[in-house]
């Protein structure tokens, strides 16, 4: 309950800000104290005081800290734009202080308990968003501050700009890689894994023979088959889809088989007492019970499929596709384009994952892991 125990961030922010103020200026070619650096240090100092010194509501505190942290970061980064590589110790200390303030802000937000559902949802999104924003801010600050060569690592702002300027190309690549290779491969791979699992379940001989092999194969470095698939299925999307099929097949097989065993003995005995047939038991008991496992495979596969398709494009493609673009633009030194594709891949992958997670929530609402929240 004591002042110090409540948050260690306040003290460090204070310390960092003071040292930053002493070691001003922020960059080698600006002079000592000026209005911008005054605003920044002041904002940081005030934030440090807000963190613990004032008795404010946590929500209000969080808002103030949010403004202070991001305002300071914005001023710092826009101050260094155009004079990359000139940052001094003071600059990094100030960024670190701003980051700690943001951290404290996130901690406060995480502690908020709100009844209103939509506010709660907003918080649920805001908290990770701040975290993600700070990954980008620190990246931007380091790259600009240290003047890291553009072709080694471009700053996020440049990547964002590239995304905005290249929407048609990115769109075409997404169409080729996601809507053709990934989608087709994912559907076929998951369906094949599922059907095989049912087959293996129905025919015990198959199960005994196939599962150990399936377990083994699912651990293999499957990307190794990408060049082989290009050899077999040609350079257009079918070969990429084939890689995706292979990558997604085994997780689905193994998970579905595990899921089919997930119903309890008692439940299966219950069905037996009704003299229920194989398919009735499958449909009414074992598949619903297997649903959480099947969704697990669908989620794993959503990220695997994307990676598989992109990797496969490294081994021969028509001149469109995310993997093609990544490998080609590295050669052309358009590293910002590479990162733009990576960002798109990450966003698409996360959305893909998120959609499946939402469907899972809706259909396996009864499972304790979801009921429990």
């Amino acid at each position, binding site marked *: 309950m004591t002042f110090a125990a409540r948050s260690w961030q306040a003290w460090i922010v204070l310390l960092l800000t003071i040292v930053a103020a002493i070691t001003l200026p922020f960059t080698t070619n600006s002079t000592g104290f000026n209005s911008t650096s005054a605003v920044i240090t002041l904002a940081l100092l005030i934030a440090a005081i807000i963190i613990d010194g004032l008795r404010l509501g946590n929500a209000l505190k969080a808002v103030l800290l949010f403004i202070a942290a991001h305002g300071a970061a914005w001023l710092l980064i826009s101050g260094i734009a155009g004079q990359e590589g000139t940052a001094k110790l003071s600059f990094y200390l100030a960024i670190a202080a701003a980051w700690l303030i943001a951290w404290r802000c996130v901690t406060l937000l995480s502690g908020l308990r709100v009844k209103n559902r939509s506010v709660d949802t907003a918080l649920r999104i805001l908290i990770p968003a701040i975290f993600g924003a700070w990954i980008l801010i620190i990246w931007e600050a380091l790259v600009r501050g240290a003047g890291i060569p*553009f072709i080694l690592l471009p700053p996020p702002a440049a990547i964002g700009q590239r995304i905005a300027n290249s929407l048609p190309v990115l769109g075409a690549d997404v169409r080729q890689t996601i809507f053709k290779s990934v989608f087709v491969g994912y559907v076929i791979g998951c369906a094949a894994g599922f059907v095989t699992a049912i087959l293996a379940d129905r025919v015990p001989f198959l199960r005994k023979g196939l599962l150990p092999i399936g377990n083994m194969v699912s651990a293999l470095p499957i990307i190794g088959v990408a*060049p082989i698939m290009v050899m077999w299925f040609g350079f257009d999307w079918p070969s990429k889809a084939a890689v995706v099929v292979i990558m997604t097949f085994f997780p689905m097989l193994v998970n579905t088989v595990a899921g089919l065993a997930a119903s309890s003995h008692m439940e299966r005995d219950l069905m037996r007492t009704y003299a229920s047939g194989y398919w009735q038991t499958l449909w009414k008991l074992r598949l619903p019970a297997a649903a959480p496992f099947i969704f697990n495979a669908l989620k794993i596969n959503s990220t695997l499929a994307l990676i598989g398709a992109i990797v496969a494009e*490294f*081994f*021969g493609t028509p001149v469109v596709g995310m993997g093609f673009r990544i490998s080609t633009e590295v*050669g052309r*030194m358009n590293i910002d384009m590479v990162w733009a594709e990576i960002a798109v891949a990450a966003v698409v992958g996360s959305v893909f994952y998120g959609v499946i997670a939402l469907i899972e929530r809706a259909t396996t609402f009864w499972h304790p892991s979801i009921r429990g929240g």
Partner: protein
Amino acid sequence: ADPVTLQLKWVTQSQFAGYYVAKEKGFYEDEGLDVTIKPGGPDIAPEQVIAGGGADVIVDWMGGALAARDKGVGLVNIAQPFKKAGMELVCPKDGPIKSEADFKGHTLGVWFFGNEYPFYAWMNKLGYSTEGGADGVTVLKQSFDVQPLIQKQADCISVMTYNEYWQLIDAGYKPDDLIVFNYTAMGNDLLEDGLYAMEDKLKDPAFEDKMVRFVRASMKGWKYATEHPDEAAEIVVENGGQDENHQKRMMGEVAKLIDNADGKLIEAAYDRTAKALLDQKIITKEPSGAWTSAITDKAIK
């Protein structure tokens, strides 16, 4: 000895025999240099490596080097061991393509990763769209091997005279079975393997001197390699090159591109390369200071 790190553009093979020979034969040592050779690979961009400080000097194709220069990496060509380009497009005789006029509506295999510029420059000159369709050509990003031709996935593929061409021969094609479009022979060649260093580092006389010694020893290595191709190939294999026979054959072909091993850049070829890149908007402005003869001049003295 002064340490020098050389980043190659591709995996260890006779394409880089001169450097391996110079190292193994002690030519570098004689110049007071301790040279580390880093092999490249399909995803290694030497320009990135040197920009990050991972190498002092790189072997690169001029297209890639000028593109990097355009992006703010001050690469300067300090020597040009390969006078001619080794790239060509080959088509099977029994296929649909007999001459440049037949390209329309067909699929052509090309390497990317900075190796596509000569091809696009050529198509540009021919006036063919590369977006596919009946009036243009369909471009296929070719894998590292000659499968696309064997599998008939492409009507023509890119090969290097010293490498993939022989893989086709190994696969049962006879030279008569193939129609060859050689970029050098067509006058469409862009400069291939050259040595590049960073502009700002070259301003340091000590570094410049190091590069002079490096180029001198390297060219001595190339000279030795072209004169003793079998021995050179063996050295390459010892350093990780695959398949001795293949390397020997490659050495023989590479020797034809080296010419007289003085490492001097031919200005006309440079101008042609720069213009082609500019035409395709791969670079945004006319490059200046992208090459220097200072090093080779001193090296040859």
